């Protein structure tokens, strides 16, 4: 566990502690909507994926999508949470043009998933356990466009009725970094489970961030809710701005009003959404159109049996099976694809060497090129081939880096690059000896110095020989040969 005192913010009148809880809306990966047969695909023509249920035509009845139930349960299991085999759908009432029924079907008192937990990995290598309060299923609203017409808003109901999982954390987070790290971990779990694609740009994952500040150890203070923050970076910025704002208000003798605020990413600040203040009486009641949702333990067990290995378990296995350090293992398992990529490179090879090449060379090049793993020009098999060339002595580590850079640039295989560029390591004793002799002959003064009692010069001679061979000499062979000639 990390040291909580390190997270305190210094104000003018002393130190403050930030308390953060997140409500994450994650779109369920399903073909059809939660209560209708209309498609959930992103980017279709306006109102083309709307059934009469979604548009709230009179007399239309919602019928629940079995797969969405399964996905919610699967997510609950991934969050090590209590699965409620009986849950109830309620109507959450409010008026907005993109909510045609005048209510959202949600779950209030009896959610499908109860308490769970997420272990968050922090950048300093420590971990923090964050409590999950609940997960419930609900409908998304439609989309309003306010900038298309001077006097009108345009409404597209394609998104209306799409299944969302609202995942509510306990107020267990204590800094902007922790909030971002929590969101990152939650996203990874959802993507491992395959229940949400975690695409924050397309809005399939977004967060409402609850922030309050207090004196260390004091009771919880009034919080503000920052709505619809749609990237990890914005979550971090929003928390940083909002906590400083609240500290300033309190230090100036003011009080915090509970309110909904909006994060303006262009200015990096939060501001009050006054229009929503009145609307906080949702008058929840059980939806008369829907009976309680019930399933048996066998249904839950069937889903549990198909659960993949999740990031925490994978990390533990990478440490025990491959002997990797916790940090390196954490980097590799942060997403499912790199973890799989690593395992196929490591198979039958030195696992530590493989980890180093994947997390340093490959990730480094991908980062530099602004690509993700799916776009990598070097496949796992290709990187494996390169590691094999190091192992059989064809390439030194140093040469291998050059070969890798060329593979990344051209998309060619390791052997092809080596042949084409003549980068093969020189392991021919005669050629190496010739190079050593030349270095010794050209540097008589240094040789005398070395022999006169300055053994640290050995490294310099190594460098000269490597340079003379264009870096291609096999260092494992140069070392003993050079030693023999210098000492002899």
């Amino acid at each position: 566990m990390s040291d909580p005192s390190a997270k305190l913010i210094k104000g003018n009148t002393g130190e403050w502690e930030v308390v953060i809880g997140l409500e994450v809306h994650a779109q369920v990966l399903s073909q059809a909507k939660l209560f209708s047969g209309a498609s959930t695909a992103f980017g279709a023509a306006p109102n083309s994926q709307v059934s009469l249920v979604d548009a709230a035509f009179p007399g239309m009845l919602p019928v629940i999508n079995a797969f969405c139930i399964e996905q919610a349960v699967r997510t609950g299991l991934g969050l090590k949470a209590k699965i409620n085999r009986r849950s109830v759908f309620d109507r959450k009432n409010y008026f907005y043009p993109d909510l045609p029924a005048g209510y959202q079907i949600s779950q209030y008192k009896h959610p499908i998933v109860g308490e769970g937990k997420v272990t968050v990995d922090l950048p300093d290598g420590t971990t923090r356990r964050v409590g999950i309060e609940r997960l419930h299923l609900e409908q998304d609203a439609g989309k309003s466009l306010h900038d298309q017409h001077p006097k009108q808003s345009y409404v597209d109901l394609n998104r209306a009725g799409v299944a969302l999982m609202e995942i509510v954390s306990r107020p267990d987070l204590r800094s902007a970094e922790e909030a971002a790290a929590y969101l990152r971990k939650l996203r990874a779990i959802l993507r491992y489970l395959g229940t949400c694609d975690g695409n924050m740009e397309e809005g399939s994952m977004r967060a409402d961030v609850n922030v309050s500040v207090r004196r260390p150890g004091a009771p919880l203070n009034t919080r503000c809710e920052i709505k619809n923050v749609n990237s990890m970076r914005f979550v971090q910025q929003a928390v940083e701005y909002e906590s400083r704002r609240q500290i300033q208000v309190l230090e100036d003798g003011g009080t915090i009003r509970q309110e909904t605020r909006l994060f303006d990413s262009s200015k990096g600040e939060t501001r009050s959404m006054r229009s929503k203040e009145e609307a906080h009486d949702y008058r929840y009641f059980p939806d008369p159109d829907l009976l309680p949702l019930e399933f048996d333990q066998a249904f839950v067990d069937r889903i549990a049996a198909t659960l993949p290995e999740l990031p925490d378990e994978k990390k533990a296995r990478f440490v025990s099976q491959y002997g990797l350090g916790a940090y390196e293992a954490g980097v590799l398992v942060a997403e499912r694809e790199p973890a799989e990529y690593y395992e196929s490179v490591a198979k039958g090879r030195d696992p530590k060497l493989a980890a180093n090449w994947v997390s340093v060379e490959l990730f480094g090049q991908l980062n530099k090129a602004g690509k993700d793993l799916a776009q990598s020009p070097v496949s796992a098999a290709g990187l494996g081939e390169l590691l094999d060339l190091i192992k059989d002595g064809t390439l030194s580590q140093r040469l291998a880096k050059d070969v890798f850079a060329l593979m990344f640039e051209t998309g060619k295989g390791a052997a092809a690059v080596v042949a084409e560029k003549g980068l093969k390591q020189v392991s021919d004793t005669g050629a190496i000896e010739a190079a050593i002799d030349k270095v010794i002959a050209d540097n008589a003064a240094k040789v005398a110095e070395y022999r006169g009692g300055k053994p640290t010069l050995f490294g310099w001679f190594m460098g000269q020989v490597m340079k003379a061979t264009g870096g291609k000499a096999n260092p494992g062979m140069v070392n003993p040969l050079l030693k023999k000639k210098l000492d002899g």
Partner: protein
Amino acid sequence: MPAERNPRLARIGGALLDLRRRRAPITLARPGAAALSKLDRETVRRIARLARIRVEENEFEPLAGELSKILGFVEQLSQVDTAAVEPLAAINGLTLPWREDRVADGGKADDVLANAPARAQGYYAVPKVVE
């Protein structure tokens, strides 16, 4: 609304049926509970605003009286002692039907927009909502 479609009514109806089946005596749980709930004007004003119903100033007082009477009428049910009765969502063994995850609807923007007072480029067009 038919009783089987409204869980609350269904639950109450179910409790009564169940009691009759077991020939249990119906007892009054809270003898004074039937006292009328009194709604004040401000509450009625708030309810009207939440429901987006326009109510004229001179209507609040009579409306408060009428709504209070309705509440009082319904509250008589709280006299039934249901302490020993399991909550019941449906009286005829119905369970929530589940649907397969298959796209089987949509592609009818014209139908969906048919009753819209205004439309533009395939969208509903509504008076501007200012954020």
